[in-house]
């Protein structure tokens, strides 16, 4: 019984934490944008505008639901869910901290610990494409359709690089369990995969940007061309769900990059740190990537769509394959033997 309560507590805490972070992240987005552009940003609701996300949420709930004429009613309502749910489900296996003891129960700092968690995230995360493509199609708007198709083509293209990047990590770690992958990076800081596999790291980070439809690859929205992409016709909470899904996906991607390449929750040179410290370390590393998302968005210009696809297929895919080969060869011939 206590086990079950602890699990319940963990699920609630992690899910709540991620949703809360996503909400704060929307604020951070605007604050950072303002900072980069020498503005102030939201500062009216609460101290430093901290309650702004709450106000936004309440506003979303009370906004009018619009369903465009000619839209497919059922799919139009389902699409936001199909977009948000996979992103939220991927957090299930992210290791936020190592082993811990809560209320006398020995447990670990993730919702679930499964053997194939590294591929679970790709398999589940890849399903987010349905929300986008169906949202785009069901709106019966040209911009939405174009945006949806573009976004989904982009997502599938870069999913390959993501998958191959994960493969090369799995090859050297010898396990597909995220905890084992983190373990393999414990100890000295140069054991982080970011230093061991710089190429994979770079490709993976680029792929995360494309997977989450973030700048400089945000062709899902691409405001000047496609108004707002696949969610042009969406309003109120349905729009908010798309938004929330996107931010959750960013958080998940940042945590995954941390887990795969920056040693996850491991504190360098301190293998058995208490879990609170580990959580903090994880938070700090993830925050760096979260900041990177914003920094890039407000600094770099957007690609062209054909450039994006060319990059994905002609650069990222061959390089990822080569990288897997390289580390596969090194592993197969004993370079990473213990």
């Amino acid at each position, binding site marked *: 019984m206590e086990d079950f309560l602890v699990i319940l507590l963990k699920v609630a805490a992690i899910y709540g934490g991620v949703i809360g972070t996503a909400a704060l992240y929307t604020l951070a987005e605007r604050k950072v944008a303002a900072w980069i552009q020498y503005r102030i940003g939201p500062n009216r609701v609460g101290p430093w505008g901290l309650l702004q996300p709450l106000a936004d949420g309440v506003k979303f709930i009370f906004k009018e639901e619009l369903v465009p004429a000619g839209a*497919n009613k059922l*799919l139009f309502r389902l699409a936001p869910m199909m977009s948000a749910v996979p992103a939220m489900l991927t957090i299930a296996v992210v290791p936020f901290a190592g082993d811990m003891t809560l209320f006398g129960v020995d447990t670990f700092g993730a919702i679930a610990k*499964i*053997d*194939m968690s590294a*591929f*679970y995230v*790709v*398999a*589940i995360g*890849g*399903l987010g*494409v*349905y929300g986008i*493509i*169906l949202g785009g*199609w069901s709106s019966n708007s040209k911009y939405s*359709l174009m945006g949806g*198709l573009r976004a*989904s083509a982009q997502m*599938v293209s870069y*999913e390959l690089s993501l998958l191959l990047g994960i493969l090369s990590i799995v090859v050297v770690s010898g*396990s*597909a*369990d995220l905890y084992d992958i983190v373990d393999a990076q414990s100890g000295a800081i140069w054991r982080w995969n970011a230093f061991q596999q710089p190429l994979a790291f770079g490709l993976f980070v680029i792929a995360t940007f494309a997977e989450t439809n973030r700048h400089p690859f945000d062709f899902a929205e691409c405001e000047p061309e496609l108004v707002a992409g696949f969610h042009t016709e969406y309003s109120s909470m349905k729009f908010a769900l798309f938004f929330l899904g996107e931010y959750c996906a960013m958080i998940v991607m940042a945590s995954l990059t941390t887990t795969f390449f920056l040693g996850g929750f491991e504190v360098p040179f301190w293998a058995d740190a208490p879990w609170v410290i580990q959580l903090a370390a994880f938070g700090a590393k993830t925050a760096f990537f979260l900041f990177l998302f914003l920094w890039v968005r407000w600094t770099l210009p957007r690609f062209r769509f054909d450039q994006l696809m060319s990059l994905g297929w*002609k650069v990222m895919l061959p390089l990822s394959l080569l990288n897997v080969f390289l580390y596969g060869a090194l592993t197969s011939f004993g370079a990473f033997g213990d």
Partner: protein
Amino acid sequence: MAETLFYLLSIGAIACGAGVIRARMPLFSVLCLLGAFFCLSGIYLLAGFQFLAVTQLLVYAGAIMVLFLFVIMLLNLGDENEIARQSGIALSGKQLAVAGTSAGVFALIGVLTAGYGIAPVETASTRASGIDELQTLAVELFSRYMLPFEAASLLLLLTMIGVIAIAKRQRAGEPTHTGAGFPWTKEPLDEESTL
């Protein structure tokens, strides 16, 4: 708990399967198929085949169904346009009833098939789960099933070439290949890319 889940997933799979063949729009048919894949993935997981479950999600749900959706979007087959198979053995009316009955009989026989001559499995799956299974699978795949494994890559290559040969249109009167696309050739390929 696991048993309940199995029966729930089974009902889900059957309902989705029925949806596949009953849906008016191909889009809903494909979405129902997606649902059936989820249910089956869950069942594989319950039966102790993690890797197969992930495969089901990764390839079937994550890739094949996306392809179906793309085609529906590209050809604009969402609702009104039926792409019909008129010849062959598409049935209607009375024939449908006959087909339904025979399929029902078939299902019954299938249930009979269950009399496998081996004892029903009363114990939970005995296999070791997870990585061990994956490692056994890898050992099998790279020793005994090495040839099928390599043949699989040939199959994929063949599919790739076949699809390009079928779907990519060249303009009449042009040579089959121009070296376009390679970084070291200058002239871009001049061909229609739209349908």
